């Protein structure tokens, strides 16, 4: 829809373009910004013209550009994403959005939007990714994506901060993942997304999203994981309540799907 208050559009080409004037917001590829009225937003600064590489290998793993699109993610060579490739596909399929939007939607945009059902948030938290955040004064800070998303439509990003990239450790790419989701309609917005992996021989890493206002990471022991899982989930206070599922159902589905996912990774 038309954003009636927006009077300016700047296509960013360098970092200094990201210094925002009052009322300006950055816009990425999807673009969710145009799907709802945006009171108070008077200018947009386009991130997709910065020319950031969608991905590159680094000494410690993989760096995904914040403007990497869902399509570019899925088009990465198999050997780059490794064991995470199937997980990336599953997460992309979990979107309620059409491929017609996903091919331009970006990882950074999805994380910054901080919808509980944000499938790229699910993916990046599952991969233990760290967000690289650009501040206005040229500073850079890093924060795990799991901590950056703090609630439904809430992040630690300040108004003048921009997501630059996500660093994925090499070990996460080598891991195997189990993925489960549940929603009120077969292809509707996710009500529960659960991923599980086994980063070390004696630990299981479980991530719950969509069912909770923020992504939840649980470290479970291999022995006795089931009891611990039930205890940890029962202790959560951030079950999400919206049109896509009641909280009691979401909590129960998270427990059920987590049990399946953990059993799957342990069976490997």
């Amino acid at each position: 829809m038309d954003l009636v208050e927006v009077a300016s559009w700047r296509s960013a080409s360098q970092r200094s373009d990201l210094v925002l004037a009052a009322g300006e917001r950055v816009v990425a590829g999807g673009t969710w910004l145009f799907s709802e009225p945006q009171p108070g937003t008077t200018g947009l600064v386009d991130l997709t013209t910065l020319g950031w590489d969608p991905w590159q290998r680094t000494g410690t793993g993989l760096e995904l550009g914040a403007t990497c699109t869902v399509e570019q993610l899925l088009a990465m060579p198999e050997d780059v994403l490794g064991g995470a490739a199937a997980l990336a596909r599953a997460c992309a399929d979990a979107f309620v959005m059409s491929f017609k939007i996903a091919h331009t939607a970006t990882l950074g945009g999805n994380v910054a939007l901080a919808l509980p059902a944000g499938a790229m948030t699910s993916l990046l938290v599952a991969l233990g990714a760290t967000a690289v955040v650009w501040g206005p004064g040229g500073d850079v800070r890093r924060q795990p994506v799991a901590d950056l998303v703090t609630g439904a439509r809430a992040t630690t990003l300040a108004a003048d901060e921009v997501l630059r990239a996500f660093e994925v450790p090499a070990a996460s790419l080598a891991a195997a993942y189990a993925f489960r989701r549940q929603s009120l309609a077969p292809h509707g917005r996710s009500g529960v997304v659960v991923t599980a992996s086994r980063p070390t021989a004696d630990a299981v890493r479980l991530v719950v999203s969509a069912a909770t206002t923020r992504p939840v990471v649980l470290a479970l022991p291999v022995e006795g994981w089931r009891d611990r899982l039930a205890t940890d989930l029962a202790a959560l206070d951030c079950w999400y309540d919206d049109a896509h599922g009641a909280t009691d159902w979401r909590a129960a589905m998270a427990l059920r799907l987590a049990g399946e996912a953990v059993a799957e990774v342990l069976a490997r």
Partner: protein
Amino acid sequence: MTDLDQRPPGGTPVAAATRVNGAELAGEPAAGQCLRTWLRQHDHLEVKKGCDAGDCGACTVLLDGRPVHSCVVPAVRAVGREVTTAAGLGTPEDLHPVQRRFVDAQGFQCGFCTAGFVTTAAALADAEGRVGEDPERLARDFKGNLCRCTGYRSIRDALAGRTNVEAAPAVGGFGCSVGAPAGPRLATGREAFTLDQPGTGVLHMALLQSPRAHARITRLDTAAAEALPGVHLVLTHRDVPDVRYSTARHESRTDDPDDTRMLDDVVRFRGQRVAAVVADDLVTASRALDLLVVEYADLPVVLDPEQARLPGAPLLHPDLDPVTSRVSDPGRNVVAQTHGEVGDVAGALAASAVRVGGTWRTGRVNQAALETHGARGWLDERGVLVVRSSTQVPFLVRDELAHVFGIRPELVRVVAARVGGGFGGKQEMLVEDLVGLAVLRLGAPVQLELTREQQFTLVPGRHPMRVSVELGADADGVLSAMRVDVLTDTGAYGNHAPGVMFHGCHESIALYRCANKRLDAEAVYTNHVPSGAFRGYGLGQVVFAIESALDELAREVGISPFDVRRRNVVVPEDHFVVNGPPDTDLVFGSYGLDECLDLVEASLERDDLPPPPPGWAVGRGMAASMIATIPPRGHHAEATVTMHPDRSVVVAVGSAEFGNGTATVHTQIAAAELDVPVSAVSLVTSDTARTGYDTGAYGSTGSVVAGRAVAHAARSLRSLLDPMEGPLVGPVSATGRHHGSPRSVAFNVHGFVVAVDPGTGEVRVLHSVQAADAGVVINPEQLRGQVEGGVAQGIGSALYEEVVVDDGPGGDGHVTSRVLRDYRLPQIGDVPATEVLLADTYDELGVRGAKSMSEAPYNPVAPALANAVRDALGVRPHELPMSRDRLWRLMQEERS
């Protein structure tokens, strides 16, 4: 890692030409503009607005060959690139292969979503226009293309390359799957819907909606808004005629209470219209809304319909006079009520060998027609107020506008172009009133197009109901007593409240032969968004309860659900009785219920169904419903058929086409009566200045009332033509009329086999079958489409769709599900195939033996599904939608 901070500056933007369908698009878009409106601003009206939020795909275009939802693409990003729309893919004379597939499969009904489907499919199809038929792939690739009419089967056929339409015979074509005349225009985006009009010279209206659920406006300062350059008019409660009316439209305006002012100094639900601004463009109008200063004094709020009628409850309309306003009891918030009994229900229940009962609840459902409500008005050269509107009832809107403005109906003309879906929602006057007032005040063309959010927060949806049923029967399951108690939540206004309540309780109860019946029903005001007309008009809600109770009775007695119906349904010679004297103008023009029961029963015995997933429970369920073929108390249509010397035929009929298929049907009727090819027949429709009177397209009357008028007219014309010798020297016309009485009945029986996962509440349909008693089939493909579309809507209401309101502690009842993705409108992957079976009947009152079949298929779906879930889980659902969380909770409660 690389140094992220040091990036080369990007290239300077080059001012390349933007090309749309090969032609250069002049000018620059605004900074906050989306591609959809930029294209429409340049009269690319083939790019539709369904949601404006990226969900429905009606605005899909190809950007450099790739499909995008143009409503969420910043127009700036399209500058210098190639845009292809449905109109650029092909023309009606030279269709793109994908467009040919959609025409051949008739992969549309109203056709509002078609251009977006075509552009999406064009990006995925092979050279022959086929996308394929793998259900999982289609579910994934087309989840961003929503269709409300078809139920998607015909769209799947189009994508697979199957043909459903038949070549028309040399003359006639009644009974043939003749393609809809508009098909090629719809597939190429050429068919003009309501607001597909050039943009120049029209002013735009925006609405301020109430932020309070119940309040008196104490101050409304318009000065700043009026001072904004580009603003032409601000309308408030101070500017509107002092006339109360109803947004609901019926043949008789006294069917609905006069409880609504065009703009009021009291707001009664959050979202109600408070003011309207007319400006040069929508951006200016929207800015002006922010400059309006409104102060409110809150009034107490009541949201629970049970509480609303108790003593001491806040009153919504305490000052209305019951007689002149036709509100049954304003002192109890009761808009309409009926309390009556035949026989002795208490005595019969006490003496019954078997008694079953329960209380059922239905949720809020939105019609969700893909085209939002909209109207454009202007004054013609004679000073007549012309309103082009997305209405199912142009004549009724004309009459009410004349009433409200105190002018003669001759000074108002209402025109409906092809309407982008209605489902009852467009049997309301929701935009035409303010547009008309603005035009009369300004003398300039004015347009109002509702947003998708307003479709949820402002447009009346389906009445939520609480229905309690108690049945008594003998040991063989023969009914001895029926006690039904109904409470409907009509929201802040009583539009359609009496009609929906009475109709909902009528054919649902009258379907059963039972000596002792009692019905108590009340429709009450609350501070919710108003409820209104919705496919089935109340029957779906009450049928859900009664058919669930019947299912329980069959279980108690130990007979099949089919047999319990066979033992109790009305048969010809029976009267139609609810809680008083029987109907006098409702008769059995035909009877196919027995056949429908047999057909579905046999189909449910199929042994070739897919196996359920391990651990899932399987269940079978069915339900029946009856519907009068015409609404009561008069429904009028006049048609004029003209034969021209070149043997071309023009049918002028007032009924509107909104996906119901009447354009095709009227063409077929005229061709058959006159022995001409369907290609020789053209239509002039739904224009109060160009056709005779028509009550309108509601109550499934397009075929049985308007169609009979067409048939009468064509027959009269034939009687004039047959004696003539030699070639015609000039046009010859004849007129026919029909008045909607007496009325017949039609029947539908639905059956499901489902698998339910008790652990998650997920329901999977293994088999869906509906048998319809539609009389003689006018157009098999269209009939099948109407049934499938109704079933899909029924499945949506039963499993997925829900308008969520804030009714919790401290809530003010406002709608929180404001976009389609939060409403869960069924996608292509959510709707299973349905086997459609037809009873072989001929209706004496129908048009050439045909009966209505637009609303009816919806009604038995939810109870059939609920009964199948009951069969699978061993516990009965009492609430719609049977969403996964609700069914899961039902199982938890059962276990604990």
